[in-house]
């Protein structure tokens, strides 16, 4: 369905708005392909076509929501009536207002949608997945791959409201993701590598495979370490995972509801000078790039930490209204089936000048943390305290030494931010679980614990 056709359906819905109510309709039409390879063959190929519309009704500061994938006129009318009914139940909240229209962010459509994505044949997608798997089976200790997949999607999103919002965009995404397995003396390790872009032509298949292999092989022979307080070097993907926790606390909703460890800290020096945390929905290379957010507000570049000083929080219209400020374009919309939430877009730490190799070479004794497990269960999002499982490699004399597994690292987010020593020059975005971008990061003195020195 073209963006114009989708907008036509939305126009029908918002055209039925009654006096005194705000009606917003959000439509999504998405095609996706995923190919997984195993043993040199296609393991599975999945092709999808999905579309649906979600309707939000605001009346008397109350909001109701209903979604449908049945896009007939009757079904859309029924969904609007149901959303109206649903809007009679909730509590009134001053934040329940419809956004007014604004010019959307100036993002070149060609940077969001790579027209080459339409020319990729199913066979080329299959070949990409198989080539990825082949490339990840190289090396003496490599025993195979757990997952080797190619995926792409084309997503047409549109929004219209009775307050005059009306916009659409098309975005393409493509990725390869491979998890390599390595084995030695009966123990197995695994690690992934990935590459993302707007179409197959932008992906680095060999690079993703090599990344998975070197990361998996590096962990071989790992043992539980002695407990110690050491500098920790975070792998870019691990940094990105931790940024997910940080970003959650930087949403205004978390602050307003007493769930943020950053509440009341605007203007405070939370990290050393030179450390910048940025949310930028207009960053064309970021996985979450879009001209407008989940309620039609233009996306923007928002500096959260500027030279280590907290500047403010991320807002959607509801949180901004409560705080008497303006939305930062962070209304999130994963699908048509849920009302707008509040999430980061492309959220990243601005890369520094030090190449990762140089950063590691400067560490005399430390732990290179390549994987964490249980971050979302092992962390208290309110206090920021965390204790998570970790695997990686010890750094001795500036070089990788013995591998480590069955370890934990413990600390707190405020402590971790305050103790950042060096921000690496690399920046990698994780397209999963929010579009977090991390660099190699050196953090001073964290508690690394293992079973080796402990004596029950």
């Amino acid at each position, binding site marked *: 369905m073209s963006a114009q056709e989708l907008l036509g359906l939305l126009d029908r819905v918002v055209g039925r708005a009654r006096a005194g109510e705000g009606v917003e309709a959000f439509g999504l039409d998405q095609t996706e392909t995923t190919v997984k390879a195993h043993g040199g063959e296609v393991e599975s190929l999945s092709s999808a076509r999905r579309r649906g519309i979600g309707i939000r009704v605001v009346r008397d500061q109350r909001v109701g929501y209903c979604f449908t994938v049945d896009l007939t006129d009757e079904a859309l009318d029924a969904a609007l009536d149901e959303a109206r009914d649903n809007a009679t139940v909730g509590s009134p909240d001053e934040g329940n207002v419809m956004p007014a229209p604004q010019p959307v962010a100036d993002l070149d459509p060609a940077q969001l949608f790579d027209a080459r994505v339409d020319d990729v044949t199913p066979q080329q997608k299959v070949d990409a997945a198989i080539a990825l798997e082949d490339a990840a089976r190289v090396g003496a200790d490599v025993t195979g791959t757990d997952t080797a997949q190619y995926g792409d999607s084309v997503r047409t999103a549109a929004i219209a409201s009775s307050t005059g919002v009306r916009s659409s965009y098309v975005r393409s995404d493509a990725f390869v993701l491979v998890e390599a397995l390595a084995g030695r003396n009966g123990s197995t390790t695994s690690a992934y590598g990935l590459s993302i872009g707007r179409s197959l032509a932008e992906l680095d298949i060999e690079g993703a495979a090599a990344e998975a292999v070197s990361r998996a092989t590096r962990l071989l022979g790992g043992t539980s370490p002695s407990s110690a307080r050491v500098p920790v070097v975070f792998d870019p993907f691990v940094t990105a995972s931790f940024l997910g926790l940080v970003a959650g606390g930087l949403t205004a909703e978390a602050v307003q509801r007493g769930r943020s460890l950053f509440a009341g800290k605007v203007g405070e020096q939370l990290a050393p000078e030179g450390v910048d945390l940025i949310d930028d929905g207009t960053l064309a290379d970021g996985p979450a790039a879009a001209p407008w957010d989940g309620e039609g507000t233009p996306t923007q570049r928002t500096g959260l930490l500027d030279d280590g000083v907290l500047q403010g929080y991320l807002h959607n219209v509801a949180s901004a209204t409560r705080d008497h400020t303006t939305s930062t374009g962070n209304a999130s919309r994963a699908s048509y089936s849920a009302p707008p939430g509040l999430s980061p877009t492309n959220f990243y730490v601005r890369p520094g000048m030090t190449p990762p190799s140089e950063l590691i070479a400067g560490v005399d004794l430390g732990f290179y943390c390549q994987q964490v497990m249980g971050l979302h269960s092992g962390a208290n999002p309110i206090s920021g305290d965390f204790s998570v499982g970790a695997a990686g490699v010890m750094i001795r004399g500036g070089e990788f030494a013995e591998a480590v597994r069955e370890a934990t690292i413990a600390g707190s987010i405020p402590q971790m931010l305050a103790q950042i020593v060096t921000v690496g020059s690399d920046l990698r975005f994780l397209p999963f679980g929010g579009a977090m971008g991390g660099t190699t990061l050196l953090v001073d003195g964290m508690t690394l614990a*293992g079973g080796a020195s402990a004596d029950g």
Partner: protein
Amino acid sequence: MTPPVLDDADLHTILATALSGGGQFAELYVEQRRSRSVSVDDGRVEDLVTGLDRGGGVRVIADGRTAYAFTNLLTGDALVEAARIAAAGVSGSHTARVADLRTVEPPYTHPAAKNPSGLDGSGMADVVRRIDASARDVDGAVRQVGATYGDITQDVLLVNSEGHRHNERRVRTRLTARVVASRDDVVQTGIEAPGAAAGLELLDRHPPEDVGRRAAERAVLMLDSRPAPAGEMTVVLAPGSGGVLFHEACGHGMEADIVAKGASVYRGRQGEQIGSELISGVDDATVANAWGSYGFDDEGTPAQRTVLFDRGVCTDYLTDRLRADELGLPRSGNARRQSYAHLPIPRMTNTYILPGDDDPDEIARSVQRGLFCEQLGGGQVDPASGDFVFGVAVGWLIEDGQLTYPVRGANLVGDGPSILARIEAVGTDFEVREGICGKDGQGVPAGLGNPTVRIGRITVGGTAA
């Protein structure tokens, strides 16, 4: 449920089209899902969201390869087009034909005694208000209450080229309460989240007041907690709390896709004594109205009870059609999919450590120094190594057989086989919990159960010096 546009001739055409590229097996999965949820957050009732999602997917298998195409346009034409795409996705040289469809009745049914539609929007809002109020009544330290009521009515139609056809209605209802309490600088969270493959009778078994109170009591209790010590120690898992550990550390490695790929620490170990003789564990989709139960799995195999570990011996893996064929194992009825937009993969249903012979009270009393886990948080496992980590949401230090004080910031780190081997006592008691299990980007409801269990030693990650 059959969409009105699909009659037997349509179904036959879709399956025949799917086989036209030389596939050996074809299947159509059609799902309609009516969902409702409402939450209360910070004293405000918000987000009454209702909706209808539906769609159909066509799967073709040829020589272990799979093609899947799905659409949420449920017309005969759209599904035939999906069948064409799937047929082109895996070519083969088979000449399979579509057998005459015969309707099969589910061996187990889990009907909702009280249809969720008996509760309208205001009734749903009232439920979450009651959770909110009861949680706030517990203690002045309660700062925030978040609660959700949700129900899903899922109607499935599955037909395949072997002639199988079944319809099944699955109703699931769940309450969740998340309470934040704070005092001075300490902030703690308590969670309670009962659910069932049932309707409004869930509210009779778990009155909203109880749900709110339990979550609040946990949060308030943890305000008095001290940082957990780190190191190896004896750990006692309270009934219900250890199910998630068994699920993650032992269950996932028994899923046949992980086994088939060589990514499981339990691969090739059927018949081997891995754990203590005290430990037996099952996966059971037949438990009446349990959160993870169903009549048929998502490719039409009847629900079953499968023994994973029998007195410590590794027994049967959890299979779907593909991996059962690949490994030469029976189909265990564990193929599950999050929705029509997902391929079925081997998943757990309700996974339980079975009760043993030990007096639950005696189990903790026997410990000189250790950790008592009343509630675990989420966890994660690397099935290849069996390594896992779990947060301990509510824990106590055990000293001289007594629970002395609650601890925070603890987590458990170890690997599945070692933990099974170090089980020293299994209680006669038993409780279950409900969760959503994530794997390959798909979340499905999973039940978790266990008696009181003592593990001889396990690495505890803590924050105390």
